[in-house]
């Protein structure tokens, strides 16, 4: 028993030490900002995120926090549903019971969350729906990007880059998910009418190690590959690592989507990707819209976010807007 206790205490000590060494700022996206000082009019916004396991959603929370931090009278309470629909449903109920002034939700799925959102609306709390929508019209405003448009922009960029001819590998996110389907459909529309041939396509489940595996297989099978189109930047990076291990990374161009600062943009800066297309989080726009609503203005029901493309030539200038 004594040895067991010793082990546990050593473990606890280690955890403590490790905990102290981490950057305190790195996990602040998950915690709420302390209320503003004094008795000034305070707006409380409840934010329910469907899954903080995804870096892009961590970024969304960070963007919301950054935008909210610049406004004194706003406080945002963040909740993470950990990819569980029912947990997210109770978030909405908790926010209603707590009497927040506005709810921002990035829902996991439409159908089961439509009713809780409608109930919150019925109590007079405005709701901003981010990224994924809910059904019907019982919400104040939807803010999201268009994956089809981004996929199409990628397809058109590829068509121009390859001068309308070449062999392309497509590493799909997940062919059963809506973003995966849209990024695929958009891409197909973008390359339509050219001689570009998709010789190999596989699901990499949005994961870098899976992308690397599939790319290994593609490399073994095809001696000539002109370009790799991956549905997200980690996928493009995994493909790059596979090609690099085979000594063939110079023979092909890598295209990714999402353009997070620490992923896609970093890869473009390092010269690994030929281009990455931003899938905007809408964090800043959500807070801007929230302030308009709270100040009594009417806002558009649907706000479609624009995208930007980043290539090695324009990444330092902040990329170019996608038309």
């Amino acid at each position, binding site marked *: 028993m004594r040895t067991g206790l010793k082990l*546990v205490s050593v473990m606890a000590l280690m955890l403590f030490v490790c905990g102290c060494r981490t950057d305190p700022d790195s996990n602040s996206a998950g915690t709420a900002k302390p209320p503003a000082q004094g008795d000034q009019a305070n707006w409380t916004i409840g934010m329910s995120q469907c899954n903080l396991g995804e870096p892009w959603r961590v970024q969304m929370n960070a963007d919301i926090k950054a935008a909210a931090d610049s406004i004194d009278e706003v406080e945002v309470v963040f909740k993470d549903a950990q990819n569980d629909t029912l947990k997210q449903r109770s978030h909405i109920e908790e926010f209603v019971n707590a009497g927040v002034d506005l709810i921002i939700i990035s829902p996991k799925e439409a159908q089961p969350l439509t009713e809780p959102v409608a109930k919150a609306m019925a109590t007079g709390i405005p709701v901003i729906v981010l990224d994924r929508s809910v059904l019907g019209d019982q919400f104040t405003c939807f803010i999201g990007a268009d994956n089809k448009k981004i996929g199409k922009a990628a397809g058109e960029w590829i068509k121009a880059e390859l001068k309308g001819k070449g062999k392309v590998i497509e590493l799909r996110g997940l062919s059963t998910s809506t973003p995966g389907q849209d990024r695929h459909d958009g891409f197909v529309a973008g390359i339509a009418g050219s001689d570009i041939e998709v010789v190999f396509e596989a*699901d990499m489940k949005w994961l870098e190690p899976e992308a*690397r595996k599939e790319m290994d297989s593609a490399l073994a099978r095809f001696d000539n590959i002109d370009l790799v189109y991956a549905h997200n930047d980690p996928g493009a990076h995994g493909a790059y690592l596979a090609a690099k291990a085979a000594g063939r990374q110079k023979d092909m161009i890598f295209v990714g989507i999402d353009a997070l600062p620490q992923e896609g943009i970093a890869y473009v800066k390092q010269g690994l990707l030929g281009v990455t297309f931003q899938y905007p989080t809408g964090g800043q726009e959500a807070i801007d819209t929230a302030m308009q609503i709270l100040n009594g203005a009417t806002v558009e029901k649907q706000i479609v976010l624009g995208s930007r493309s980043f290539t090695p030539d324009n990444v330092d200038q902040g990329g170019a807007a996608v038309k």
Partner: protein
Amino acid sequence: MIDQPRGDLATKQQTTASRLILSPGGRAATALLLVVFVGLVFNADGAFFKSATHRDALRQASVYGILACGMTLVIVTAGIDLAVGSVLALVAVCCATMAIHWNWPGWIVVPASMVIGGLCGAVSGTLVSRQKIQPFIATLAMMVFARGLAKYLSGGSKVSTAVKQADGTFEYVDVPYLFRLIDSRVLADSVSVVTLIFFACATISWIALSHFRWGRFLYAVGGNEEASRLSGVPVTWARTLAYVWCGVFAGIAGICQAAQEQQGDPEAGVAYELIAIAMVVIGGTSLSGGRGGMMLTTLGVFTIGYLEKVLSINAVPEAWRLMLTGVIIVIAVQTQRSRRA
């Protein structure tokens, strides 16, 4: 059987051959050959005949294989360790932080990472053998805890070569030498270093299981715990050490994962424990303990590794891959079952 004497001879040879095929090793090898045969038939325009395909198949199976090496010892004691995937992620995060952000040299990072893995194993092992919590529950708790710790330490995002500065901008640092070394290849590019690490882990586990007293104890504990306790086997100690061993190997797998991804991903290794368990079971190690071994697990690792590769080079759609994998696992385990079972 017209020619009687020759037929006799043939029957005799057949019995020796069939005895070989019906031994656990023979059955595991049959399953592997079956998968390789499928690869030979569906060779994806000759891609299966390229040496690079085999090198990559082995590289991809290596991380799972390293987990399976540790898992074998735990399963021999009739236990199970569900935490290996999460411990892999935890160690990958710690390893990437130490190697990339703190710029520590490899000779500190590697042992430190193994110690972190070993400590997780020690906690699971203590809970199982001293607190008498069922292995499934104890390691399930560790699985959830280690995943949470990995997310906490990394702040929810990947620990990569883009290092966030105090002012919110990113500074890009080089991939550490340790990571490049582990992700490189040797012997005229014919073998990946991670594959060699897997072979080393398999060899060490094999020696521990079959040439050391502790290994014998593990079989005894798995076969009949009460009997081994009565005959003087230090059951608690032997069992705890099996989980520590499994944790250390999960740590090694975590280092390999981080090196190959060039980052520490707190979401890495989800469901890897299931693949590792499948590898052990397809090899022929019994989940009820007391039977099996490292050689069998190695064959199981190859079987699953090649299965994944064959499905991947043929670009089989995801839905079919899942269904085929399920069917093939059942067939492989069925061929594996010994006559006694």
